[in-house]
């Protein structure tokens, strides 16, 4: 059942993504990107990341994409001629997609067991989680009911430094956007 839903959502994500890069109108491109993001949010739920799924909808689809649409409307780009490149670019894009896909093909076969066995060359693995003892949080992740608590504890303890760096990053972005976008300083 889960698998079926996953493949359905996956197919819709791929389809929306393809439409996003090929639609001539920027506005519809943006909307198809939103559609991809929704499909991904669904997949996150299937992968036991409910919290991320919520954020995906709120921050990505909600905030970031609205910003994009806002700028597209502001610049009145919806009526411009198509910005899709000509035939050579299509061929090139298709070729790149195929080559990259082939290069990443190996990831398709990954299972938790194989992942663990690669780290401990050869040994047969029953419980993959047992092979990552350093990560005490791994066990907690398996309990979806307290995922939120574990996540926040981890964020403010183990990942305090990166968390603080993101605050600097947002500060930079705020200053930068203001400086660049204001008509007069």
């Amino acid at each position, binding site marked *: 059942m889960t698998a079926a839903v996953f493949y359905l959502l996956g197919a819709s994500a791929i389809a929306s993504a393809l439409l996003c890069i090929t639609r001539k109108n920027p506005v519809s491109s943006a909307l198809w990107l939103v559609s991809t993001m929704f499909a991904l949010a669904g997949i996150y739920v299937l992968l036991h990341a409910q919290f991320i799924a919520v954020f995906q909808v709120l921050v990505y689809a909600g905030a970031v994409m609205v910003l994009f649409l806002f700028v597209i409307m502001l610049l009145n780009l919806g009526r411009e001629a198509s910005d899709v490149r000509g035939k050579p*670019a299509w061929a090139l894009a298709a070729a790149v997609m195929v*080559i*990259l896909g082939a*290069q990443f093909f190996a990831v398709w076969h990954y299972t938790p067991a194989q992942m663990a066995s690669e780290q401990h060359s050869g040994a047969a693995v029953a419980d993959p989680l047992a092979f990552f003892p350093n990560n005490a949080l791994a066990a907690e992740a398996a309990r979806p009911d307290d995922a939120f608590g574990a996540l926040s504890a981890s964020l403010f303890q183990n990942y305090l430094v990166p968390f603080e760096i993101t605050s600097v990053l947002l500060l930079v972005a705020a200053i930068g956007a203001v400086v660049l976008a204001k008509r007069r300083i």
Partner: protein
Amino acid sequence: MPQHSYGAIPWIGLTVLLPLLGFLVNGTLALVRPQAKRVVSLVGTGVLLASFIVAVLVVLQLRQETLIGPYTVTFWHWIVVDTLQIDFAFALDHLSAVMLLVVTGVGFLIHVFSVGYMREDPGYARFFAYLNLFIVFMLLLVLGSTVPLMFVGWEGVGLCSYLLIGFWYEEKANADAGKKAFIVNRIGDFGVLLAMFILWTSIHTLNFAVIAERAPTMLEAGGPVVTMVTLFLFLGCVGKSAQIPLYVWLPDAMAGPTPVSALIHAATMVTAGVYLVARTNVLFAMAPLSSTLVAGIGALTALFAATIGLRQYDIKKVLAYSTVSQLGYMFIGVGTGAYVAGVFHLVTHAFFKALLFLGSGSVIHAMHQAYHATHAHEDAQDMRNMGGLHRYMPWTFALMTIATLAIAGVPPFSGFFSKDEILAAAFARGAEHPVFYLFWGMGLVGALLTAYYMARLLTMTFLGDNRTGTAEQEHLHEAPWVMTAPLVVLGALSLAGGILNLPAFVGGHHALETWLDPVFEPAKKFSQLVMPHGSTELLLIGGAVVIAVIGLVAGIRGTLVRPIVVAKNAPAEMGFARVLFNKYYIDELYQFLIVSPIVGLSRLVLWKGVDQSVVDGFFVNGSAALMRGLGWLGSRLQTGQVGVYVILFLVGVVWILGSVLR
């Protein structure tokens, strides 16, 4: 514990420090008060005199010491990486002592000459600053105890030479000549760098003294490593000492002021290659293949450059090709294993070639002033505009004659002894490897041509009728004493320089050979040279003298035989028909059988064909153009289109991912 004091030797750093001080003072003056010529001349020449005095004291002290290995003065640890330690240190041994005296001594004389020669130049202070800086780097090259420190000097003299060639920067040709000199030299530097790395990986040291110590035990004599090291080192020498095929920069370098030509492009810098071979004599002695190549290139260059020198009209160009040719002789010497002979010729050449250049400088100075006075726009360096100058410049004429006899190899002038020793050594080596007989023969022919073109130079410049012009003749006169005095000193040295290493057959004791013996001792284990004695020796000498005299006589008569046309009226090319109208049968024979073919070869084929078009056009300009073209292609890719950038980016992505996946 009572320490041995070593007298003045620890002060050796002063010989470098003083010119450095001079550079700093003159450099500052050039920037803030370029008009202060008195101070500049005092400082510029004063530091050199002081440096020379220190050098003399040091060398006198060295005579009394019985040192094993060089005396090393360490200033600081220069580069320390892991287990590699390279000190900023000077090493004084008997070889560097000789060079030290030559560089500071001849350098001082040329500085004094420059005071007069450059007096009117607006860049006076700048000129002396560069000249002092050159001495600093030259001494670093000579005294550096390790290959990298020597390399600092090696590069530094190149830089100074570059700055001084382009000193009169208003003329584009000068700037181009400077650039050519620098780029050709970089090719040589590449060889030195590679040699350094091979040395370091194979015997883990870059200290000259330690190299001499370790090489015999850690390297296989005649093996690939030592052959490679010496070949790469020699590539550096070929560049710096202007040998075939990298000699092209030296004749162009004559664009610089004449004292520069005398100091850098004749007496000191260009001999650095010879010095380097002598310095690493053990390595070369262990690599017979490389040594033969050194001698071969030397012989080829000696002959080739001499033929080109036959038909030049620019007085400095003749001397430039002559320098290339004489450097060839030095390489025959060091390549044969006669290191002392090579160094000996280096020293005597420094005397007589400096004298020749300064003498020509005097002449050019006089010519220039004469033309300046009459506002004529003639070439002050073209010998066809000179002639009969001995009436106006008797001192210069006398001294130039001495130098000419010295370079031609007429006894008892200095060049005779040194060149003779080289040729004798090549002949002696012939018994082992017959190819050295060929080198000897080439050297002998080169000597004949040398005598010829030098006699031609002297005759065209000083003898016969004056061709400068009637109005100009009034203004031709001897240079001021500040220019002639250094000439007199150099004249004395050129005359008597031979006593440094008088051979046994005139009752000498090979003084220089005894002095340098400790330096070349290690090499003797690998190549023993048995010099000819008795009748063979005398026969060789006799032959050489006869050849020199024939060359001189032919040169004078061949030049006087027909009137010379003033440069501006001269036909573009000398036709052979003119030659046939000669009243002396013997001259005709000379012309027809020996000179004309060689002259034709020289001017038409070698100089115009090989030198000017093939070497210059193809190798130097061609490779530059090729690189520029490739660069232009790369630049075309930079279209400004993000799309193109992304495509190239993705090429990289696909390639890297493919490479890590294998």
